[in-house]
């Protein structure tokens, strides 16, 4: 089940392959632009980097399709540590059922009774209010530009943007959020993933990201809402609203792969490694 922002984004990236395969089709819940514009900027006979799907070492017809002559089996280094395999797989199924039996129907009902601008506003509001996570993470990474941007975004969006419901900082000032978290911060400190863990409700993670996520929990103002029931309810609304924006992605992912558990693990680790490697 993919019911946190990080997982949703991960699956969006991974599944966009399937959303967009073949005739270049894609859906966007926000766009109303239907025009096709063609501007070709280059057609010089300079060969770009190869896609590596063919073996192009020889000029003759070589049918070996691998360009890297990789071994048949994965190297031990490439293996993802999964000592809690049976627990993780069980949690994967629990989350799968939670998604199909609870979260998805709830998100569909939510979609039916709320207009699009409301859902976008709710998403903006929750993103804005969790600024301390991104601010602290950027600060601890020594990224002063992003730290300043997050602070500026919060100031502008909380005032001009009507308590964060709108995002004028991005639209008019081009101050884009950096979406950092404490798991990424630990990763940038050189701390490895550790074992892969699938948590009920929260979905795929690693030992490092679990520590990071725990810290994020204490940095989120939503945690401190009183009474506790209010805090849980508000966070549930956040999850349902976020799920709306990725409805169909998990379904496609599950349909695409014969072994979705392994692919989810792989995609999660790859995605987080890419985020850690980002400048």
């Amino acid at each position, binding site marked *: 089940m993919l019911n946190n922002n990080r997982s949703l984004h991960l699956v969006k990236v991974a599944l966009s392959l399937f959303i967009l395969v*073949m005739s*270049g*089709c*894609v859906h*966007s819940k926000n766009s109303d632009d*239907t025009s096709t514009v063609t501007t070709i900027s280059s057609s010089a006979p*300079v060969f770009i980097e190869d896609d590596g799907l063919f073996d192009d070492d020889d000029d003759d017809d070589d049918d070996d399709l691998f360009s890297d002559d990789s071994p048949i089996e994965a190297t031990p280094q490439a293996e993802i540590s999964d000592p809690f395999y049976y627990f993780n797989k069980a949690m994967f199924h629990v989350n799968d059922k939670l998604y199909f039996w609870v979260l998805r129907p709830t998100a569909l009902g939510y979609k039916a009774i709320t207009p699009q601008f409301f859902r976008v506003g709710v998403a903006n509001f929750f993103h804005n209010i969790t600024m301390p996570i991104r601010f602290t993470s950027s600060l601890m990474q020594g990224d002063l530009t992003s730290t300043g941007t997050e602070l500026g975004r919060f100031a502008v969006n909380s005032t001009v943007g009507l308590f964060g419901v709108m995002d004028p900082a991005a639209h008019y000032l081009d101050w884009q959020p950096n979406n950092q978290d404490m798991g990424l911060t630990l990763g940038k400190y050189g701390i490895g993933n550790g074992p892969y863990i699938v948590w009920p409700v929260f979905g795929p993670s690693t030992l490092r990201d679990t520590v990071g996520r725990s810290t994020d929990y204490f940095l989120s103002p939503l945690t401190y809402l009183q009474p506790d029931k209010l805090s849980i309810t508000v966070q549930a609304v956040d999850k349902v609203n976020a799920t709306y924006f990725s409805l169909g992605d998990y379904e496609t992912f599950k349909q695409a*792969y014969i072994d979705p558990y392994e692919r989810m693990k792989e995609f999660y680790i790859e995605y987080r490694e890419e985020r850690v490697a980002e400048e």
Partner: protein
Amino acid sequence: MKKIITLCISTLLLFATAVNANTHNINQATALIDSAMKESLSIINDPALTTEIKREKLWPIVTSYFDFTLISELTLGKFSADATSPLGDYSDRRFTAKQQAEFTDAFTIHLGNLYLDRLNNDSQFSVLLTQSSAMKPIRKMQRARVNSLINKKTAIDYSLRLKNDEWRIYDVKVEGRSLISSFRKEYSAILLKKTPDELLVLLNEKNLAHTDNNAEQ
């Protein structure tokens, strides 16, 4: 001296011809993607069409622009029928021509289902073709990459090959992630544990689960 000048001019002309031919072909590849986009968008963005009609109209377009035989072959990689790389202890996992033909059929339907299943919303979108480039020719096929932007933010790159004077798409990269690499990884891992026939059974089971919305219905 005259001979040298003639030789130089001839070489220059030859080079210019080659450049023009290349540019011409790359433009053809771009035109193909542009045409595919326009055809698809006119259907997908048409609010008057039902999801079922969109599926029916789009499937022939998809099959005409993609080279599913090559896609399947590249997806199987070392395990494909014509590959020559040694498979060591897994030599019995190489597909026969018959198995590969079955795989191509099943995989085509699988990809079609994944795509067509997404056609259940009334969203609109735009496509901007941003760049075209040549890739090093292989197997006597010219290759090209056409980059595009969906809704001005998602990067989609198409890899195409020219064979028998026809450009066809053989891979799609979304934000740098290759469709073929993604499936190749999954099937390679499965083929370390299962035979080609067992993989075909699993893939056909996936397709049967889509009976209600099968790409070829």
